[in-house]
């Protein structure tokens, strides 16, 4: 699904970074995305027709397909995929490492995640889904219960905005957070994790496993800075680690390949683990246009709904 060109520019992080208000950013992303969606074959934005079946007493006569009756003289009612009220929780990592933005990057990983999270919230509420928010670093710092009320989005945006403006210096510890979240979510939900996942891969997967154990759908958005994926440094460089990781001085050219191997190994490990748990795992860097993020989310949402939703009569 490709948004139209005129709105596409608002999905570019480098453009969005110039807009200070997160709310406006998110609206731009979604409006831009939906405008493009009208031209796309993407399905799932509205209550969709699924099949016909024979009328049985008790069925609402409003659902009788009169056109079919005119052709066949039999009563058929239209059957729709029920748009269940999806619970979506956007879990945004606000640890110190998420505040990193390399030279030339449009925004930090946290800003990018917040923007994407707000856009998802806005989109979900537009679809009458309930949206919640979790902010975490070493623990779950804030949690907003899912709600589909239109005014709820403002609450989410305020929380995300506060997280972006805050000065957190905690390191990521995701396992406990996901365990905690799994306990808090009473209803089956879709959990969208937006984090750099700079934690032990096993802990990350164990936390996801816990969510899956509680029948929550999980989408892992692994957010990177472009420099973290390309390691473009040249000449003697002192790397000052965030989250108290110390300092390291080296010749980046000499270790670049080794570094990229390490990153690849980590990503591969997570991707395989997620696949085993039927969990979507997507790698983004902060230069990725946000419609890609939304597309991934919506595609996953549509797939999950098809797989898990019961076939009901429209409105029933």
């Amino acid at each position, binding site marked *: 699904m490709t948004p139209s060109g005129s709105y596409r520019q608002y999905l570019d992080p480098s453009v969005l970074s110039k807009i200070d208000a997160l709310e406006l950013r998110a609206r731009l992303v979604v409006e831009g995305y939906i405008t493009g969606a009208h031209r796309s074959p993407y399905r799932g934005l509205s209550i969709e027709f699924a099949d016909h079946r024979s009328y049985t007493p008790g069925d609402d006569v409003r659902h009788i397909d009169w056109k079919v009756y005119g052709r066949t003289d039999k009563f058929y009612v239209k059957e729709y995929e029920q748009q269940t009220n999806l619970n979506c929780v956007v879990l945004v990592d606000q640890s110190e490492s998420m505040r990193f933005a390399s030279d030339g990057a449009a925004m930090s990983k946290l800003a990018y995640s917040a923007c994407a999270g707000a856009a998802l919230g806005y989109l979900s509420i537009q679809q009458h889904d309930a949206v919640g928010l979790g902010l975490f670093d070493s623990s779950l710092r804030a949690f907003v219960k899912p709600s589909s009320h239109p005014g709820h989005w403002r609450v989410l945006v305020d929380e995300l905005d506060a997280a972006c403006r805050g000065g957190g210096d905690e390191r990521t510890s995701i396992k406990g957070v996901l365990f905690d979240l799994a306990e808090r979510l009473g209803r089956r939900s879709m959990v969208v994790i937006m984090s750099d996942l700079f934690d032990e891969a096993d802990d990350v997967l164990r936390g996801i496993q816990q969510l899956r154990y509680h029948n929550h759908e999980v989408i892992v958005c692994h957010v990177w800075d472009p420099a973290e994926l390309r390691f473009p440094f040249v000449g*003697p460089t002192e790397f000052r680690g965030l989250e108290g990781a110390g300092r390291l001085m080296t010749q980046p050219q*000499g270790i670049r390949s*080794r*570094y990229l191997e390490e990153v690849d190994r*980590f990503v591969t490990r997570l991707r395989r683990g997620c696949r085993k748990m039927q969990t979507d795992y997507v790698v983004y860097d902060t230069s990725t246009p946000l419609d890609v993020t939304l597309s991934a989310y919506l595609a996953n949402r549509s797939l999950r709904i098809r797989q898990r939703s019961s076939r009901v009569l429209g409105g029933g």
Partner: protein
Amino acid sequence: MPFVNPPMVWFALGAMGVPVLIHLLNRRRYRRVDWAAMRFLEAAVSQRARRLRIEHLLLLLMRMGVVGLFGIAVARPFFPFSALRSVVGSRVHRVLVIDDSLSMSAVDGGGVSRFDLAMLRAREILALADAGDATSVVTMGGRARAVVGHAAYDARFVLERLGTLSVTGGGTDVAGGLGLAWEIARESGFAPGSKVVFVLSDFAGAAWGGDADVGVDERVGSVAGGLVGYASLVLVDVGGEGLSNVAITRFEQVGTSPVSVEMPLRLELTVSNLGVGWVDGVGGDVFADDRLVRRLVVEGIEGGGATTERFAVSGGDFGGGVIHAKMRPGDRDAVAGDNDRYLASPVGGTIDVLVVDGSGRFGVMGKAARFLSTALRPGENRGVGEPFEVTVVSEADWEREVLGNFDVVVLCDVGSLGESGWGGLGRYVARGGGLIVVGGGRVDRADYNEGGVLPVVIEDVVGGESGGAFSVSFSGEGLEYPVLADFAEVPETGLFSTRVWRYFRSEPIEGSEVLLRFDDGVAALVSGRLGEGVVCFFATSVDMSWNNLPAKGDYVALMVSLVSDVAWTARGSRSRVVGGRIVRRVSAGDKLAGVDVETPAGLVERASVGQDEDGFVMSYGPLEMAGRYAVRLGDRRIEYVANVVGGESDVAGVGEDALKEWLGCAFSFLDGEDGVLEGKESESVTHELWAILLVGVVLLLVGESWLAARLGASR
């Protein structure tokens, strides 16, 4: 390890710090980056950290090695071992110092002279030269000179120059020869160990410290010490033993100087047998201006002995100014060049006198100048030729004269000369002129004392007027000065009855000699040397103002004797030794016309004429052979003579031990008759390592480039 350019070693060591410095500066110039993904960085680094450190250290060491090796290569180390000669090669710079002094003409029983043997050895040494070797040639006879002063790579050229050499009549300029070799070796681009100085000499005792028992000769030792700091020194002895040599070792005038052709010229001649055996009687001849004036027969002389002949020749026998003594010692004489001696005599020539008249007025000559010039040329009035050519100039005009044209300058009652006047007179005297200063009422004592030329310090004027009570006379006691000795033999003569009523009391300076005193003990005539010339101070006047000497009969004789004696000294300075130079002042006209010099070989050569603050000076030399030289100045012909150096007649050489003591430095000593030079030289030659080091530099550069590329580091 020794180096050609030792300072470059320190430069190299310092330069090796540059890569370290750059390394440290680069470390200081690192960029700082906040970084989130430290876990991957640390994992990447931990695996390669040790290897990276080693590689970077290796890179740093390679860079240091490149700089250091290059610096050391430029410093050009060398080592004395020949094991790697085929690898590093060894170019040799040989400096041949050839003794072409008189003693090298000594011929052995086989008819081969020492010089011939030296040239044979020189050619053998030249034959040792491989491609890339260089040779220089220096001679040390007379005054040392560089025959091939540069490092000549063309052996044929050097051979050609060797062929032009011959024995001179000069002495051995050991310090000069070694000094030139030192200079050539120092300027040579070859490594010190690849420079060898061969001295080919007979090491005759007179020149090589045979007479010295004082250890290291200061000057020669200093030069030799400096030389061995740059090159190996090999002494090749080409002197034979047991040679017999008879020579004239002394020939000089004695007694009163003759002042005219009528007076006898007393001469003394010493013949020495410098060999080891008895020499039978030898004959000889004495010539005056090539005219035989006397035959001599010298009795037999034992080895190491000498005999002296005294004789006189009168002016009636000859009319020339150069006396030549020639001995005929026979077949056993090893050195022929020392059988002739020459003497420049004032007899027969004209003595040019410049009288500076201080008391003349309005073109009328003052009394003192008139009395003196009359005394020197009494024959003018009688029509008889006299030996003096007298020029009288006033005090105001004397500086216009070219003093070098005069044998004697007489200052007669001149007031003051000033700094420039005394300076010019001082330089004139120092170059061999004669100056007589006589007292008088116009003399400015302070100016004379400040002039710094007089042999006395004038204190004050003693006495009064002629009719006064004060009066002294000249004292005849203790007269030893030859000029005055004749007067002393007849005390009652006029000189000692002279009445002097005024004179300058003066204090003779150190080194001067009081020739005559007043009878009150005060110095009346004082003589002193200044450079090559002589200055006489006469404390009273030469006219009748301060004494009545002009009225005495001895006045003329005294003035003539005094001026003649001073002139003799001046003429005596026209004697040179082979290797010396003829230098004299000439006029501007002489310079324009050119100054020619007739050599003993009959050649006429043009002398160079330079200029100094006092005017023009001609220079000719070094004098290459003994004999008569005549300087042509227009119509005038001024005779000079050059004699061989007396010490060169002693052909006995000194041994290796004596040379070690005298030179005070390390050297190899070879007997020139053996002809085994090649092996000896290879012991002295060392080999340079710079080529190997440069190969190392290249290899290190290749390694560094490869490693830098591997590390992705920019150089």
